């Protein structure tokens, strides 16, 4: 029986109703409410949770200061380094903290240029995190030197010793330029982004010293259309300047290793590998910080589950790139046939530091794959746990790269073991102390959400600032 040309068309399956688009900022918050809620931590008394965390952070910072003071006064010998392993915790921590900073710049700058509106509520904290992370990172190159009081010699200043310039071929020197540029631009960008908010704060504060500070900081902001227009241009330019830094800074940091001759370091995959790793670890830290903050400060409707989910997706992407890079390293070592390179990787996976390597693989490659699952991506607890794991994994990645390549390189007669001392652990703890002290102070002293950006996104930008 031939189908009739006029047979009735089978009823089409009803299209599923489109999933309701969740707003980035939950609930319909007014501009006034945004201002009130963001200003609240700045004017209220700190709660027990904040006090406890701050005390802990200050304690950790004190431990760090004591460790560093002891090390600078007595000598680098108080660490566990030796004639074979010249860097371990010091440069691991340096790269770790610099890497963390990249997420902030990506969120503030790159996503700004890409006009991703979801960045607005998290960009300020993320950028703050970048500043503090870079500060923590900058401590390490200073204190790891044998003669840190002469650290200024890395700066090419005119002098009467020849003049004697620095060695421009050294990656450590490129680091000096890169980190300083990064810090400067990040600071300027961060501050610039806060000007309209300082203005809001100025307008909402009664006369007094606080108001004076805010009015100074707001740089004479008048909120006129022309000012806004110029401001947008300035922000866009700065974002454009900051964007390449996300790639360049960690590329340069990776050159510390890639331009050396050591097996396991001497690899062209390092720049993209490190940049991906930096964004990866940065997003991990951002997630950790924001999950804590949004819960404690009750800012869930500004930093919604959707924000967290998108950040988790970025983490998944960059984590996969990092995993791919690990695989590439092993493949290249095998394919290249270089005995030294091959051994470096065999040693990583099965030598005395293999436990570090496998923690790294678990935390960086395996665990983030859970983020393919939507339920995991949208679970705050899971995201929190995963973000901690990512940070642990990324710390171990730098440790594995540095120490396993150093402790067993070309001549087996120099092979040795490295063990950290309590001073190095104290210094690491201190860096976390510094970071959290700064961050905790930040959330009480500066507006941690970019009010003006959020208002712009929720459609309240046109409202005047009087409300």
């Amino acid at each position, binding site marked *: 029986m031939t189908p009739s040309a006029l047979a009735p068309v089978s009823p089409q399956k009803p299209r599923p109703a489109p999933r309701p688009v969740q707003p980035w900022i939950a609930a319909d918050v007014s501009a006034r409410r945004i201002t009130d809620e963001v200003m609240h931590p700045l004017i209220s008394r700190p709660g027990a949770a904040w006090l406890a965390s701050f005390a802990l952070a200050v304690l950790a910072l004190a431990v760090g200061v004591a460790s560093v003071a002891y090390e600078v006064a*007595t*000598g*680098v*010998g108080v660490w*566990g*380094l*030796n*004639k*074979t*392993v*010249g*860097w371990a915790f010091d440069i691991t921590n340096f790269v770790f903290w610099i890497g963390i900073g990249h997420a902030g710049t990506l969120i503030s700058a790159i996503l700004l240029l890409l006009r991703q509106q979801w960045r607005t509520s998290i960009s300020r904290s993320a950028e703050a995190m970048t500043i503090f992370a870079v500060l923590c990172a900058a401590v390490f*190159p200073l204190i*790891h*030197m*044998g*003669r*840190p009081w*002469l*650290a200024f*010699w*890395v700066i090419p200043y005119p002098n009467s010793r020849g003049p*004697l*310039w*620095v*060695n421009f*071929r*050294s*990656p*450590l*020197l490129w680091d*000096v330029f890169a980190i300083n540029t990064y810090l400067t631009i990040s600071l300027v960008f961060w501050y610039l982004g806060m000007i309209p908010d300082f203005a809001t704060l100025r307008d909402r504060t009664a006369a007094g010293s606080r108001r004076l500070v805010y009015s100074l900081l707001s740089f004479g902001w008048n909120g006129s259309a022309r000012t806004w227009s110029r401001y947008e241009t300035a922000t866009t330019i700065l974002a454009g300047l900051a964007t390449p830094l996300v790639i360049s800074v960690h590329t340069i940091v990776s050159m*510390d290793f890639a*331009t*050396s*001759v*050591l097996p396991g370091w001497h690899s062209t995959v390092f720049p993209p590998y490190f940049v991906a790793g930096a964004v990866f670890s940065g997003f991990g830290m951002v997630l950790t910080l924001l999950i804590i903050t949004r819960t404690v400060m009750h800012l869930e409707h500004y930093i919604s589950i959707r924000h967290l989910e998108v950040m988790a997706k970025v983490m998944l992407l960059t984590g996969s790139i990092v995993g791919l890079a690990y695989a590439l390293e092993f493949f290249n070592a095998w394919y290249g046939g270089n*005995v*030294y390179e091959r*051994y470096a990787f065999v040693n990583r996976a099965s030598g005395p530091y293999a436990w570090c390597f496998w923690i790294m693989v678990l935390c960086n490659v395996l665990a983030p794959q859970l983020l393919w699952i939507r339920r995991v991506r949208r679970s705050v607890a899971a995201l929190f746990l995963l973000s901690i794991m990512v940070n642990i994994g990324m710390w171990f990645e730098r440790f594995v790269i540095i120490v396993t390549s*150093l402790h*067993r*390189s*070309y*001549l*087996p*007669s*120099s*092979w*040795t*073991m490295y063990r950290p001392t309590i001073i190095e652990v104290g210094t690491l703890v201190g860096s976390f102390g510094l970071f959290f002290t700064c961050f905790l102070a930040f959330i009480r002293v500066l507006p941690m959400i970019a009010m003006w950006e959020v208002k712009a996104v929720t459609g309240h930008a046109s409202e005047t600032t009087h409300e």
Partner: protein
Amino acid sequence: MANDLTFWKNRVHVETSREDLETNRADLETSRRDFLTRMGFVLAASALAGCSRGAVQKAIPFLIKPEETMPGVATWYASTCGACSAGCGLLVKTRDGRPIKIEGNTESPLSGGGTCASGQATVLSLYDAERLKGPTWLGVPVTWQDVDARIEERLRAAMAGRHNLVLLSGTIVSPSTRALIAEWKARVPTFRHVVYDAVSFSALRRATGACFAIDGLPHYRFDRATTIVGIEADFLGTWLSPVEFTRQYARRRRPDAAGVMSRHYQFEAGVSLTGTNADHRVPIAASQQGAVALAILRRVAIEAGVETGAAEVDGAIDEGAVASAAEDLWRHRGASLVVSGSQDTATQIVVHAINALLGNIGTTVDIESPSLQKQGDDRSLAQLVDEMQRGDIHGLMLYGVNPAYDFPDAARFARGMESVALTISFADRLDETASLAHAVCPDHHFLEAWNDAEAVTASFSLAQPAIAPLLDTRAAQDSLLKWLGKEPDFYAYVREFWRTHIHPTDARGRTFDELWDHALHDGVYYRDVPAAKTPPFRPSRAFTAAWQSAAHEVAGQGRSSAAPAADRYELHLYETVAIRDGRHANNPWLQELPDPVTKITWGNYLVLAPSLARRLGVESGDVVRMGVPDAQIELPAYVQPGQSPGTVSIALGYGRQHAGKVAYGVGANAFPLVTSFDGERQYHRGGVVLQKAGRSEPLATTQAHHSMEGRPIVRTTTLSALLSEETEARPEAASLWADREGGPHRWGLAIDLNSCTGCSACVTACQAENNVPVVGRDEVLRGREMHWIRIDAYTGGSEDHPETLVQPMMCQHCQNAPCETVCPVAATTHSSDGLNQQVYNRCIGTRYCENNCPYKVRRFNWFRYAQNEAFDFNMNNPVGRMVLNPDVTVRSRGVMEKCSMCIQRVQDGKLLAKQEGRPVADGDIKTACQQVCPADSIVFGDLNDPESRVARMRAGQRHYLVLDEIGTKPNVGYLMKIKNRSEA
């Protein structure tokens, strides 16, 4: 007035000017304040600018320049080493009137220009702050007058009462001192001289006396030997005259024109430095030395067609190796040599017999000019100790000995000392023995004293002071002269001795003063022995009888030493290259010198074979208690491949309690474990019990990994491959980059791994030359020793028959240095003459250069090592700092350092050539490591000069560069080691 007109144009002007004046006055007032402010600022600024960063130090120049001394220019004195009795010739470098470096005297027929590590380190023992500052009586400092008065009074009473007086001394090779002692014997009938060597050679001495009727030891000539068999004799490390033997041995390791090089077999229980150099090393139990000698004798006798008359020995020795050795010995009879370190007289007689049957006597075994070392006789020593116990000794003088530490029954000796009415020690400190003596009359350090030496008959050398005595010490010989009632001027005595005994036989027709001046200048003098044709040695009937009965005896011993009980092991005691018999225990350079075989510092340990370690469940570092019926010792274990499976080894010379703070608590004293057999002290024993002590002690090693991991780091070739030209020099790896522009010179080194034995003298020489700090045991444990040159020892092969390859490794001065590119402040640069320079005052200590160095030759100053209580070694006291070389900076904390190829010597050489208006000649400049090497394996020179030794070595067949495939283009090259295995 005319001037006034120019200022005051018109009255209006005057009015205005007056107004101006008012304002000007006001200005002046403020400007005065301004002026003062400015001046104040200028004053402050100039004061600040004028402030120097450091404390002001005053240097006061001489008003009248001392003759023959130019500040900044070294003065050299020829002398003789007093570190042991080998009598190596030295040239002592002094600056500003104090010795800072010891070098070998190339004129010496024995040592050539070489010295050993202990010899290098003696310059530091001169500046030991723990030396006694003057004489003591019962431990209390007194004046010389006082102690002399007391001693002379007691001596007079002893002589009057015809009581026994004994001088107990170490081996004295000084003919003048021996003459002085002979004078004492002549003057005092009840006086006698007993010689005591901490490590005894009395068996060899007795055997030599019995076989050849000479009073001495044979003078061995390894340079005349094509086949060498060593039986438990570490002749390259510690046995008899290691510097001389190394020099001779190295000569024969180079294939001659006929393509012949020596072949070396070593039979030993522990792994010694000599053993690691042997072509064939056979582990034996320490008790099997006699059996091995007998087995070789049997085979050689068969070849020689002589009856041995000894029954077969049921020994578990490697007959294959013995056969191979015997065959080689016979093939090169007359140019072969068998040496033994045994303390069994019968075994030594057997060895003499082997050499005699091989026709070696007169060639490799020189008995015409015997060695005068190791004069100790164990039997007379035992007799003395017995007499002391009985109270028969009234006066005892101890010169260069420490029996309360190193005598096997030290407690008995100490008790004996209590029965002696007058004990006098000439020790330089209150050591174990001196602290028990009544009087301590500290002797000069040999660098402060006049002396002479005749270590080998007819080969004389002189020792002269290179510095006036630092402390209130007096030469022991001066003390002996004084107490004899003569003028205490040993210098005059030596001169007189030479005038009366040596000058008359001088065939060169010189006056005595001419002879003396020449001898003092050269440091050495050898008597012209008329080149009379010495007839070939014919063994006398007595000799034949002696060795046949000795063979019987050794065979009997082999039978009687039944298979040991299952859990009983043998112990073998040995000397380390650095500490020897303990005399150098307080020398931090030597305590920190990595042992050439194990690379362990700061302590001794119990060496075990891997199979034994597994059986006991012991790993390196586990403390093991080793017990024999009369003594016990606890030491950390060290698992050594190649160690004889049933034997454990322990080094002597440690566990000193009274040597000083450097030695205190380092290691354990193994001397109580020395036994005796047939009147001779034995350095091995059986019946040893081993037990784990249940704790561990880390071993401060400088090299933790001994496998080369299949990497072509130390390359070897075989003699046949070399001769058939199968060995190819690998061409330098091609490079994309243009070569670096250089200057007229390109300094480089070539290191011949074939002659390097691994003795580590270069390590100490470099430390002395370049002010390398001592860091102590804890820092070595953390991997931070500071030696600029190290000897890497790689072990391969099976665990029972390993093969060791050594390689001196220092900065390779790469033309394409990985360290230079990465320093952020350009603290490491490349000079136009090829050196990689480390600029200490620019270094900020980022350690990137250390990380990027593939050879890991850079050393970082982790702490302040000088003038720091935490590192209380020679750099922490003003006396110890006198050894520092003023031409080399002492580095501060936080700065990187490394081998500079002795740039101070390079500059010296270039400057001298410039002053003399000529180009730098090859051989003008010698690095410290090159200069000291007894085997002449390190050669420095100008690679740009094709005629220089180093350039010719570099162009040679065996030359290669380490890790050149990574493109570093090192200026330091190595020559492959040649293995000369027997084809069997």
